[in-house]
């Protein structure tokens, strides 16, 4: 069954400034997000990630293009209609953006107040959400009395209050330490599973995408470099930007090499050592590993490795063929400009 995308961005462009200081933050960006998935958008700083995600709820108006939510173009709506839709597309932020002068409970009540829910019902729902995010004892605390991780949990509870269909996360874990990041990601995952909320995550951290995203788009200087399932994009990136992201130091080795070089991509079906070992054993060809950036996830390798290839074409081809005959591995000769 082909799912209708819940969010579809079509040909978005956005330029900031004018004249010499013009920045094309987005150039003809098209992305479709399916209902129920966790969709990651990754890119270097300044790639346009925040601009892109802010276009989804029109905090930023694109200069051109369409933002479809359930097939309806949000850019065509009146202010009032847009405000209604925004209640179904919640957002959390890197800096949490809680109301400092309100308690946690009242922060969570805020979107319900906006929607005209009675105080009593709002409080009740807010207490339930505090349970969901694991902070029932912080109802009366003010944001200043909370840690970063706790603030983000309150922000998540607030975002859930209006019963949204989509949750946008702009660098939601970037201000947090690794352990807290991990727990927030688990919470987002739980919300996605239990409530079926579609999650769109903006990050510059690979680990965040790896941990919870189903699909990922790589954004590079305002252009979508590639989109795909996380395993395939990360193990075998097709674009330069993707390769730079996935293995920044392997793609650009510090030493100049003078032998031919191959990149091997592992997409998580096997471990790396036996392959290289059996290459030597079975083919009698010695290769050396020039660099590797692989991660072991549940005993399986993800990532890329650079090895030297024999000089002569036959040997080269033999090695590449051998490697490519393994499931979960792809190998290709690469040149210095990758």
């Amino acid at each position: 069954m082909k799912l209708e995308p819940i969010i579809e961005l079509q040909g978005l462009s956005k330029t900031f400034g004018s004249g010499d200081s013009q920045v094309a933050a987005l150039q003809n960006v098209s992305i479709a997000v399916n209902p129920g998935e966790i969709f990651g958008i990754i890119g270097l700083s300044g790639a346009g990630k925040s601009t892109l995600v802010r276009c989804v709820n029109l905090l930023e108006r694109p200069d051109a293009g369409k933002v479809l939510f359930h097939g309806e173009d949000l850019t065509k709506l009146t202010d009032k209609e847009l405000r209604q839709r925004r209640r179904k597309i919640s957002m959390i932020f890197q800096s949490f953006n809680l109301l400092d002068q309100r308690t946690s409970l009242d922060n969570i009540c805020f979107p319900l107040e906006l929607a005209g829910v009675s105080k009593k019902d709002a409080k009740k729902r807010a207490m339930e959400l505090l349970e969901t995010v694991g902070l029932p004892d912080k109802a009366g605390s003010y944001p200043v009395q909370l840690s970063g991780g706790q603030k983000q949990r309150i922000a998540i509870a607030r975002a859930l209050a209006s019963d949204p269909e989509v949750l946008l996360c702009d660098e939601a874990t970037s201000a947090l330490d690794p352990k807290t990041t991990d727990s927030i990601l688990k919470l987002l995952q739980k919300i996605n599973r239990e409530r079926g909320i579609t999650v769109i995550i903006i990050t510059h951290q690979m680990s965040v995408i790896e941990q919870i995203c189903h699909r990922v788009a790589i954004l590079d200087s305002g252009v979508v470099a590639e989109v795909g399932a996380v395993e395939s994009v990360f193990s075998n990136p097709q674009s330069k930007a993707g390769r730079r992201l996935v293995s920044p130091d392997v793609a650009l080795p510090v030493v100049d090499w003078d032998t031919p070089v191959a990149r091997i991509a592992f997409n998580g079906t096997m471990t790396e050592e036996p392959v290289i070992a059996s290459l030597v054993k079975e083919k009698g060809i010695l290769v050396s590993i020039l660099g590797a950036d692989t991660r072991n996830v549940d005993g399986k390798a993800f990532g890329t490795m650079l090895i030297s290839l024999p000089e002569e074409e036959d040997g080269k081809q033999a090695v590449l063929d051998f490697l490519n005959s393994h499931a979960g591995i792809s190998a290709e000769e690469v040149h210095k400009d990758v």
Partner: protein
Amino acid sequence: MFDLFSDPVKVAQQLQIIASEYGFAVWETMYSLVLETVFAYVIGLPLGVLLVTGEREGIHPLPGWLMKIINWVINILRSVPFLILMIIVLPLSKILVGTKVGTIATIPPMVIAAFPLVARMVESSLRELDQGVIEAAQSMGASTWQIVAKVMLPEATPSLISGGTITLGTILGYGAMSAALGGGGLGKLAINYGYYNFKFIVMWAAVIGLILLVQIFQSAGTRLAAKSDKRLRGR
């Protein structure tokens, strides 16, 4: 001016004046202060909000020319010296409150002098707000009015109170000056008895009263601002 107590007859006479008129002067000072402040905020608060929300990058942009005019009017009113402004505006009091003399008559000019200050105070308080919080509210579907009423004003409350304290002190000063043009209160006591009639004990008593009022407002305002600020709660 500093030879206060050498003549017992004059001292007695002045104490007499203080006993009979001081209470009323304080009362006049206070009620005109309250009225002026209330009206200055009735005009200045919405205007200050407008200055922030109505600008090009604001949450509800207004036409550029309108913003220019508002800014222009505020700047002009702010740059005319208070006494001159008062002289210019006093005839308006005839229309607004039916008289050109007395304490009541000085209220409209004082409001006109004070509301631009209030507008700028409010503007600067609102500009201190974290833009992210306003954006968060927008992302939740808040209307302009809801953002002003539920986010901007409540979040800026401590700063608005601090600004209010300064405004109060300034209006109190204006009130004392207005005595030169017929206003009542402690200022009148100081100018009429002290300056025009050499009753310097009365003058000093009035001045001390004004000083005390400023002190009280200032410390009460500071304390209230701190108390209202939930960001200052210890962990």
